[in-house]
């Protein structure tokens, strides 16, 4: 178990910047998820933590000790690879016990621990099979088994569920989380699937284009996104963005869209750009006849207890999560009101969220 500190880590491949000066800390025993679209540098960051890649600059600290230049074999970190990397010339048993054999553990102990892990992952019946004929889910478990069979300081997992089908993925997500609750080891989990991230993480770190945009608990990220990218990446359906007027003074409680005034959390700083972007989650918008913004219903998706209504307004198209008691039809003109304490305003030039009462108490804005 260990705390991992990443300090100003940069990584370039030739002219290409894969990781742009990341700094964050992964707490001891935490399930930490790195989330971001393909190619944003998640794997690269993870490999730097594991010691498979040297950062171009910056430091990695394990429990306060600088390990930046220690080789992978000297860091005592377990790694689950994106494509498992099971040794094809070894049986399941030998794959799982590999790290123990490397450490030269006594035979009886190796046997015991391998079987315990196999039992935990429910693959005891496969122990003496080769790994080549295994189904994706089983390969996955073997790869996990090889990681957790030894007590490492931290467990790094690179999209371990990426190759599984949706149903099985959900199951494995749950199992992984349960496993974590049980062994309570520092875990860094990489994924590009926001649902996976939201459901498993203690804290999430969101990356895009090699840059860390926000680090925080899932709820914090969902409710108080630091940038427009974070707001749009997390949540399904995504946050709605509307074009609003800029020029917001510190302390303002209103934002204007095409002449209509909408309430917003009290601004803690000013915004002097021409325009602004208003962000509102589908569940923070209501269909109400006296709502300040008007639009026309474009589509209605019935989803059981709720329905998703798509409305076209002058300021842009948006989606509303409405109770299924609301009766609306295609083409109908409707009014929309916004939950004034929950909307977010973004600076259109920097994509940063405007500091407002919503963000009070956040360490990072």
């Amino acid at each position, binding site marked *: 178990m260990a705390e991992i500190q990443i300090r100003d880590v940069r990584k370039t491949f030739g002219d290409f910047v894969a990781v742009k000066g990341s700094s964050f800390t992964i707490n001891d025993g935490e399930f930490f998820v790195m989330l971001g679209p393909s190619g944003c540098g998640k794997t690269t960051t993870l490999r730097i933590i594991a010691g*498979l890649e040297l950062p171009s600059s910056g430091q990695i600290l394990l429990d306060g000790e600088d390990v930046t230049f220690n*080789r*992978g074999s000297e860091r005592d970190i377990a790694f689950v690879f994106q*494509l498992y*990397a099971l*040794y094809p*010339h070894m049986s399941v048993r030998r794959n799982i016990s590999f*790290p123990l054999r*490397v450490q030269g553990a006594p035979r009886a102990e190796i046997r015991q621990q391998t079987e315990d892990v196999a039992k935990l992952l429910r693959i005891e019946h496969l122990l003496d099979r080769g790994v080549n004929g295994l189904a994706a889910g089983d390969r996955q478990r073997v790869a996990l088994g090889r990681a957790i069979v030894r007590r490492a300081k931290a467990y790094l997992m690179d999209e371990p569920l990426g190759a599984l089908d949706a149903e099985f993925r959900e199951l494995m997500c749950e199992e992984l989380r349960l496993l974590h609750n049980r062994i309570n080891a520092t875990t860094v989990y990489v994924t590009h699937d926001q649902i996976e991230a939201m459901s498993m993480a203690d804290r999430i770190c969101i990356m895009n284009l090699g840059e860390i945009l926000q680090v925080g608990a899932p709820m914090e990220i969902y409710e108080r996104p630091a940038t427009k990218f974070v707001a749009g990446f997390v949540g399904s359906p995504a946050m709605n963005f509307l074009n609003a007027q800029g020029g917001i003074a510190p302390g303002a409680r209103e934002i204007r869209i095409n002449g209509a005034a909408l309430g917003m959390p009290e601004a803690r700083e000013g915004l002097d750009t021409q325009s602004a972007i208003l962000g509102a989650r589908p569940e923070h918008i209501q269909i109400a006849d006296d709502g300040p913004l008007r639009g026309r219903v474009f589509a209605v998706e019935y989803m059981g207890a709720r329905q998703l209504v798509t409305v076209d307004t002058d300021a842009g198209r948006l989606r509303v999560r409405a109770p299924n008691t609301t009766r609306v039809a295609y083409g109908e003109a409707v009014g929309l009101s916004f939950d004034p304490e929950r909307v977010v305003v973004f600076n259109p030039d920097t994509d940063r969220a405007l500091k407002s009462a919503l963000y009070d108490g956040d360490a990072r804005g």
Partner: protein
Amino acid sequence: MSGASTAYSVVEATPRGKLIAGVVVVAYALVALIPLVWIFSTSFKSPPDSISYPPKVVFEPTLEGYVNLFTTRSRQTDEYIESLGPPETWYDELVRERNMVITGPSRFADRYWNSIVIGFGSTFLAVFLGTLTAYAFSRFKVPLKDDLLFFILSTRMMPPVAVAIPIFLMYRELGLSDTAAGMILLYTAVNLSLSVWLLKGFVDEIPREYEEAAVVDGYTRLQAFIKVVLPQMRAGIAATAIFCLIFAWNEYAFALLLTSGNAQTAPPFIPLIIGEGGLDWPAVAAGTTLFLLPVVIFTVMLRNQLLRGITFGAVRR
């Protein structure tokens, strides 16, 4: 069966297709095997049978060829042979029937041993060096990598014999002429480019993640190479070793030019086995038969690896 239609898989041949393929393959095998069968049968013929015309297909088998291959003999008068008393061994008896006595062993065993030392020695070296080189080229940032690889390949762009004269002069200066070490060095050099290129293909096929996994689990890079990469290269190493051995084993021109009394290999020796009145064909055929054996055995031993190896990884995984 009339009217019944049978569905065939698109990738599998129809029975008729299989039959035709079978006939063609068998016919080709027969044509290809005839010289081998001829050599094999000649090695068991008596010298007169071996040169009789029309050739004898049915003959009385004898080991005379093999005896002549391994011995030197001299012709003696009947009186002398009788004075020796009864023959001590079956081969003495065989030889005496032709009015000869064995005067000593021939040089064949020496030449054969030279072939084994030089053939397997150079194969081992070429594969060993090739494996390390291929791994380095595949995994490390080598400056001028592409140029170096091209250079290595370019050493095979002309027939090796083209440089026979310079090598002959060089070897004479260096004292490497007619030494096993010299021949091993030469064959290793010739085989190395093939070995590097073949093996690099195999290493490239092995995902780096295997080594990286081994490294995070506590292995050093060298241990990861030995314990994780090498086992997965087995097929490639086997295929490469066979190609190298076949070249070194069969090589004739350099062996003829650079070796004589000391380090001569079997290929230049066998065709010159002279009997009475010209070439001793059964002995030559016997030498050739024995000469073929090691490569056949080696190939059969490695054939499972080889089949996988020759497809260059296409059916692995």
